[in-house]
C-alpha cells in the first residue's frame, strides 16, 4: 500500500530524513518509535505534504501512485489520513461544517455523491458516540477550547468520518489519560483494523501499543530506520531505552 524508498527530506535547508525506507502492506499496523529529533514528525508531515518540507531524493508510492506528486488535499481524497500531534484550532469554523466539507470534498475527488446534511449528521453523531465524545462538541469551533485529550479524540472522530485507507498517527497518544488512551486505542482498532487498511503509529512510548498491537516495530534514529522487528522490539525499547537499543 505504501512504499517509501531512500527518502531524503529537509526543512529550511536542514536535512532531517536521510534515506528512510519503509514498506507497509494492507492489513498491517506499523509502529515507528524513536528519540526526540529523530525525524518522526517530519516523516508524517512529508507524507501529508506539508508546505516547507522539501523532498530532495527518494520516492513514495501510495497504492501504486506517486504520492509526492499529489497536493495535500488530493492525498486525503486518495485515502491518506494524517493525525496531528498538535491539532490546529480554527476559530469561527464549526466541527460539523469543517468535517462535512472535508468528507464531501474527498467524495467529490473520488467521483462519489456528497452526503446530505442529514446523512452526514447521522454519521458524525455515530462516530462521536463511538469515541465517547459529546455530540455538542461537534457544533463547537474546530478544537477551540478543547483539552489536549479532547483534541486527540476529535482527530479520531475525524478519522472515523473520512474512513481512510492509510492512517499516519503522529503521537496520537500524547496528552491522553489512561481512560482516553483506551478509548482512542479502541477507536484506532475499530476504524482501521481491516484487511484493506493500514496504520503507521508514530509514538515515543510503548503504552499505546498495549491497545493497538503492532505487527511491526521500527526504530527511527537520525533520519533513518535503524532497526525493525516484531512487537517484542517495543518491549525491548521500553526495558532498555533508546540508548540501549541504539548502542
Amino acid at each position: 500500500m505504501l512504499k517509501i524508498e531512500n527518502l531524503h527530506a529537509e526543512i529550511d535547508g536542514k536535512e532531517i530524513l536521510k534515506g528512510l525506507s519503509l514498506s507497509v502492506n494492507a492489513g498491517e499496523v506499523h509502529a515507528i518509535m524513536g528519540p526526540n529529533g529523530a525525524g518522526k514528525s517530519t516523516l508524517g508531515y512529508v507524507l501529508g505534504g506539508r508546505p516547507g518540507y522539501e523532498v530532495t531524493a527518494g520516492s513514495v508510492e501510495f497504492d501504486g501512485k506517486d504520492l509526492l506528486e499529489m497536493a495535500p488535499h488530493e492525498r486525503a481524497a486518495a485515502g491518506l489520513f494524517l493525525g496531528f500531534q498538535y491539532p490546529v484550532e480554527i476559530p469561527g469554523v464549526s466541527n460539523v461544517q469543517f468535517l462535512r466539507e472535508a468528507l464531501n470534498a474527498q467524495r467529490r475527488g473520488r467521483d462519489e455523491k456528497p452526503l446530505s446534511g442529514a446523512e452526514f449528521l447521522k454519521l458524525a453523531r455515530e462516530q462521536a458516540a463511538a469515541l465517547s465524545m459529546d455530540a455538542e462538541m461537534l457544533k463547537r469551533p474546530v478544537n477551540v477550547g478543547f483539552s489536549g485529550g479532547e483534541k486527540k479524540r476529535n482527530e479520531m472522530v475525524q478519522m472515523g468520518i473520512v474512513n481512510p485507507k492509510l492512517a499516519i498517527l503522529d503521537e496520537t497518544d500524547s496528552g491522553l489519560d489512561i481512560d482516553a488512551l483506551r478509548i482512542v486505542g479502541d477507536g484506532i482498532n475499530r476504524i482501521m483494523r481491516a484487511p484493506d487498511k493500514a496504520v503507521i503509529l508514530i509514538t515515543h512510548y510503548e503504552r499505546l501499543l498495549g491497545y493497538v498491537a503492532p505487527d511491526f516495530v521500527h526504530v527511527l534514529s537520525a533520519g533513518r530506520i535503524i532497526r525493525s522487528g516484531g512487537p517484542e522490539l517495543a518491549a525491548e525499547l521500553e526495558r532498555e531505552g533508546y540508548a540501549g537499543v541504539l548502542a
Partner: protein
Amino acid sequence: MNVLALPTRRDESWRYSDLEAVASVWPIPAAEVIEVPAGTHVSRVIVQDAATDAVAIRDYRVILNAGATATFHVLNVGGKLGRVTIDVTCHEGSHFELGGAMLGGGDQTLEIVTVLNHIEPNATSNQVVRSVLGGRATGSYLGKVAVARHAQKTDASQSVKAMLLSRTATANAKPELEIFADDVKCAHGATVGELDANALFYLASRGIAPAQAKAMLLRAFIGSVFEGIEDVGERERVEASAQAALERML
C-alpha cells in the same frame, strides 16, 4: 463630513482615499440625514456593490436623540472607490452599533469612515470592522470618537481587523480619540494579519482544496459582523454577497 471644496490628502478623513476617483464625481451629494427620535430604534443595512469601474461614495449623518439606538451594517465591496461615511451624534444615553466589512481586490480603494460625536453623557457605541484585501487593493477604516467635556460615562469601543491576501494589498486602521471628559471608556483594537498557514494545511490534510480552505477561514474571519442583522432573509442576502465577494478574490 460634507466638504465644499475638493478634498486633499491634508483632510484627515480623505488621507488614504483615491482622490482622482473622488474628483471624477465631485461634488458629491449631501449626506442622507437619519434622525432617530428619543427612545426609538433604527437599523440600516448598506450594501455597496457598485460596478468595478464606478465611484460610490455614500454619506450618512445620524442623530441619535436621548435613549435612541441605531444599528448599521455595511458591506463595502464594489467600485474603483467605495466609500461609506457615517457621522453620528449621540445624545444622552443613546447607542450606536456598527458591523462593517470591506472585501476588495484588484486596484480597489475601499473606505469606511466614522465619526462618533458623544455630546451628552451615558451614550455608548460599538464598532466592529473586518477587511479582507487582495491584489493591490487598499482598505481603510478611520474611526474618530469625540467626547465632549460633559459627556461623562461615555463607553465607546472599536475592533478593527484586516487580513491581507497579497503582499501588495494595504490596510489602514486609524482610531482617533478626542476626549474632553474625564470619566469615559474608549477601547480600540486593531490588527493586520495573513491567513494561518497551519490552519490551511490542517484543512488540506482533511481533503479541502486550497481555495475552499481559504474561503472557509475568511468566512470565519468576517464571522459575526453580520450576525446582528435582525431580518433573517436580509442577513442571508448580505452574507451571500459577502461570500460571493470573497470567492471573486480567491
